[in-house]
C-alpha cells in the first residue's frame, strides 16, 4: 500500500516537472515581448473587420456583437 502511494507521489512529481518544463518565465522587464500586436487575442483586427464587412454585405444585416437589429436593414 505504502509502495503504491510512493509510486503515485513520484508519478505526480514527475508529471509536475514535465508540466513546468513547458512553462517559460518572462522576466518583468521583458514583458514587452508579450505586448506586440500579434500577441493580442484578436491578432488580426483588420482581417476581422473585412470578414464582418463581407458578412454584412452578404447577409444584409450586422453582426450580433456590434448592435441590435432585426435583420431588416432598417435599424
Amino acid at each position, binding site marked *: 500500500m505504502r509502495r503504491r502511494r510512493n509510486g503515485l507521489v513520484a508519478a*505526480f512529481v514527475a508529471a509536475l516537472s514535465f508540466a513546468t518544463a513547458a512553462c517559460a518565465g518572462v522576466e518583468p*522587464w521583458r*514583458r*514587452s515581448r508579450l505586448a506586440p500586436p500579434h500577441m493580442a487575442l484578436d491578432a488580426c483586427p483588420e482581417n476581422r473587420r473585412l470578414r464582418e464587412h463581407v458578412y454584412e454585405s452578404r447577409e444584409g444585416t450586422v453582426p450580433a456583437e456590434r448592435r441590435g437589429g432585426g435583420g431588416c436593414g432598417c435599424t
Partner: protein
Amino acid sequence: MRAAGLVISAVAAASAATAVEPGQAAPACSLSAFGDARGVELRDYRGSVLLVDFWASWCAPCARAFPLLNELERDFGRRGFAVLGVNLDEDPAQGAAFAARYSPRFRLAADPEGDCPRAFGLWTMPSSYLIDSRGVVRAVRQGFLPGEARALREQIQELLAEVQGPQVGATR
C-alpha cells in the same frame, strides 16, 4: 501531495530570497549610457540619498510616475538627493522616444541586459528603491500609486536629515 507542496514552497522561497528588501545593501550595479548621459554605477551615489526607478517604454504606469520624479528632483536635488531612472528597454530607440515624449528632468541610464533589476530581484514594473547615503535600501515601491507621493517625500526628508544631521541652532 506533501512532496508537491515542498517543491512549490521551495520555488516560492527561492524567488522571494533574491528580492532586495529594506535594510539590505543595494547591489552593485553598473549601468550603461542613455542618450547623452554617461554610464554610471550605483556606488557613485554613496553619500547621497538616491531613488532608483526602473522603467520601460511599454510600461504605462512608468510614464505616470515621471512627473512625480521630476518634482522630487526639483525639490530635493540641491540637498543631496538624486533620482536615477534606469531604462530597461531591449531596443534603446524605444527608450529614447519615450524619454523625448515625457521629458524626464533627472538622470537616466540604461540596462538593456537586465543585470541590475535581476540583482535587485525586481518582479514588477515600475519598481523604485530608495537608497540611503550608506548604500542601504530603505524603501521599496512596486508599481506606481500617486497616493504614495506624500509618504515618499517624508521618507526622503528623513534620509536627508540623517545625512545632514541635526540642524545646529534649530529652534522649536
